[in-house]
């Protein structure tokens, strides 16, 4: 493969091929599916966040490989058990969110790179660009909240593509640290405030013009209760992008959504109105009956007076 115009992607491919040869085909698959658009976005992220630093890219590849091996192994077991491993939120928090070594060694680089390397995550990004961002416009003078910032990827996208100001909320100090690193690399941290805060125990006011809440619901024991609080954080007439992982076991996935209708039902019950949605599988099932991880993303609004 030749990457003359995309040297960082080329180095990434070489590193992936060396460390995890069985994962290397994903690069060609993404190019075949998404072409130059994908190459440009991925090259830019590697150049800006990883500063073309080969050592950092090697480490990120290792983290991505471990993260993917972990979740794929759980997926094979899920295929038989059809249930997530029984875990409380406290257990997941201790094992994952509060564990700096796990977060920076595996989880955060894994999720950040998955936005480019996993088909359903990149399709969610396209949905964000094509359907959600036009509703935001320039965002001048307006505010968004990102609840459950994860790596900070969607906070970064909101800030770099608009003039919005943002507030991010998470229970993991390591997620917030990573988010500020990402925003700093993209020179947008001055329009952002990162908060270590439980939005249920300490509700956030005032309501924001826009919300992003990306793949958080499946991490909770009671996503319906969380959504009931989330509704109050969006202004009437504002827009939110809310997504959830379906049939996708992970070390910290607790609530099992078996289809997108279940997610939609939770959103409507919480008081959101669904404007648009996309439901995307990670890959094509190999045989009939294979359970494939799916991502469901919804653009929601809140009617005046609610």
């Amino acid at each position: 493969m030749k990457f003359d115009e995309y040297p960082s992607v080329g180095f990434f491919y070489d590193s992936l091929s060396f460390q995890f040869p069985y994962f290397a085909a994903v690069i060609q698959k993404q190019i075949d599916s998404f072409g130059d658009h994908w190459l440009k976005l991925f090259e830019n992220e590697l150049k800006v966040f990883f500063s073309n630093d080969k050592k950092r890219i090697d480490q990120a590849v290792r983290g991505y490989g471990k993260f993917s091996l972990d979740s794929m192994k759980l997926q094979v077991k899920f295929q038989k058990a059809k249930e997530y491993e029984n875990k409380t939120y406290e257990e997941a928090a201790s094992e994952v969110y509060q564990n700096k070594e796990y977060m920076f060694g595996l989880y955060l680089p894994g999720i950040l790179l998955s936005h480019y390397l996993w088909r359903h995550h990149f399709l969610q990004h396209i949905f964000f660009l094509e359907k959600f961002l036009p509703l935001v416009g320039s965002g001048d003078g307006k505010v968004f909240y990102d609840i459950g910032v994860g790596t900070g990827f969607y906070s970064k996208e909101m800030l770099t593509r608009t003039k919005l100001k943002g507030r991010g909320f998470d229970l993991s100090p390591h997620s917030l640290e990573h988010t500020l690193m990402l925003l700093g690399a993209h020179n947008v941290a001055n329009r952002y405030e990162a908060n270590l805060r439980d939005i249920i125990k300490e509700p956030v006011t005032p309501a924001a013009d826009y919300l992003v809440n990306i793949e958080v619901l499946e991490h909770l024991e009671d996503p319906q209760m969380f959504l009931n609080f989330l509704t109050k954080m969006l202004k009437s007439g504002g827009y939110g992008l809310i997504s959830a992982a379906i049939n996708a076991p992970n070390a910290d996935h607790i609530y099992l959504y078996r289809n997108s209708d279940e997610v939609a039902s939770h959103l409507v019950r919480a008081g959101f109105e669904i404007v648009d949605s996309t439901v995307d599988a990670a890959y094509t099932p190999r045989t009939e009956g294979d359970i494939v991880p799916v991502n469901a993303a919804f653009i929601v609004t809140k009617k005046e007076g609610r």
Partner: protein
Amino acid sequence: MGQKIIDSITPIFREVFDDPSLIVTKELSANDVKNWDSLNHIILIVELETLTGLFFSTDELVNLKNVGDFVQLLAEKGYRG
């Protein structure tokens, strides 16, 4: 001992990669087998865990690049084939 382990895991490699005539050697890697992609790699690992009754941690999985690595890990964990 290495060859005994290879002999005992060869049927799993042949089944997972859907190649009844696959010759399994210590040097064999994903670069040599058409169907050795990410999904089959994981299925291979889970099948090997089932065969041997052993569990491989993520840190151990990261270092498995060819059959020789699999054999070494299995031997270190006490599997004799």
